[in-house]
């Protein structure tokens, strides 16, 4: 952040860091980005029974400009991957990625010509959630682990720089 130039790691920076991490974690807005079957389980997690609103995340923003978290739920086909990369790049920092479901993690049961074998070939993924489709509890567990990861970030000392990976490296 721009402010760290004046506050060279005095004690209150760590408190400020805790505060910044806490505020980011507790109001992380997911991007409404459902690709395939996992999208239905993601929607089931949003709605009243599993209730993602408990974590301040029930606002699924359609536009990447207002979203912090991209939950890639479903199969990223090779025709869709340029759009996925562009949407990720158009999200504002700080941004996180959850690969939900076997297809997003490793291509899942579709090991063929049409599917990208894992979203981490193109995007820096923070949390992988296995399952086809993962149960809503698994998605919630993945989100809680992401919150724990965000709390451990040094968002002021060396803020994360996340960018799209070079093609297929």
């Amino acid at each position, binding site marked *: 952040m721009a402010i760290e130039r004046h506050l060279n790691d005095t004690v209150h920076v760590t408190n400020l860091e805790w505060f910044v991490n806490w505020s980011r974690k507790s109001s992380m807005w997911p991007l409404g980005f459902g690709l395939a079957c996992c999208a239905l389980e993601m929607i089931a997690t949003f709605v009243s029974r599993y209730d993602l609103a408990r974590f301040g995340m029930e606002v699924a923003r359609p536009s990447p400009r207002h979203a912090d978290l991209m939950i890639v739920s479903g199969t990223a086909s090779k025709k869709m991957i340029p759009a996925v990369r562009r949407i990720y790049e158009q999200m504002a920092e700080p941004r996180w990625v959850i690969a939900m479901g076997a297809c997003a993690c490793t291509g899942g049961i579709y090991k063929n*010509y*049409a599917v990208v074998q894992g979203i981490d*070939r193109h995007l820096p993924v923070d949390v992988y959630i296995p399952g086809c489709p993962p149960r809503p509890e698994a998605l919630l567990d993945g989100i809680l682990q992401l919150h724990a990861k965000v709390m451990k970030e040094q968002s002021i000392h060396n803020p994360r720089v996340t960018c799209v990976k070079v*093609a297929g490296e």
Partner: protein
Amino acid sequence: MNQEAIKDRLTAKFGQDAVLDTTVFRDQLSVTVIKDKIREICRFLRDEPDLFFDFLSFVGGVDKHPQTPRFEIVYQLNSSRHKHRFRIKTRVEETADGLASIDSVVGVWATADWHERETAEMYGITFKDHPDPRKLLLPEHWTVFPLRKDFPLEGTDDTPDLPPQKI
């Protein structure tokens, strides 16, 4: 009207040489017709009052690789009035420059548009005077025909993840 009677109507109308082969399997009969007359046959099957096949379920391709002629186009027909089904097939030979071609039946059934576009991009069969011969399901920059038997399942290196970078 059972399928044998439909086949006899076909042979009566288009002569014996139009119907090349008939296979019967578990109460379903499929007739292989000659490729050049496909559009007249389809129009006849649709317009004949007591056949009246006005509903085309799908147009599909089958790659019989070792055999020649290589490709087989399947037309699965259904009649909304008489509620009977029928299947006709044609064999299409892959010419030297690797482009098999057949007349398009979009004029007869409007639904054949997307079916033929998908069969074209998956097998490399061109449907003559098709109104909109663009790719349907595959990315634009691909030049492979995935559903052919000699195409590996995992894809080759000309099915890249990303289109060539437009710098």
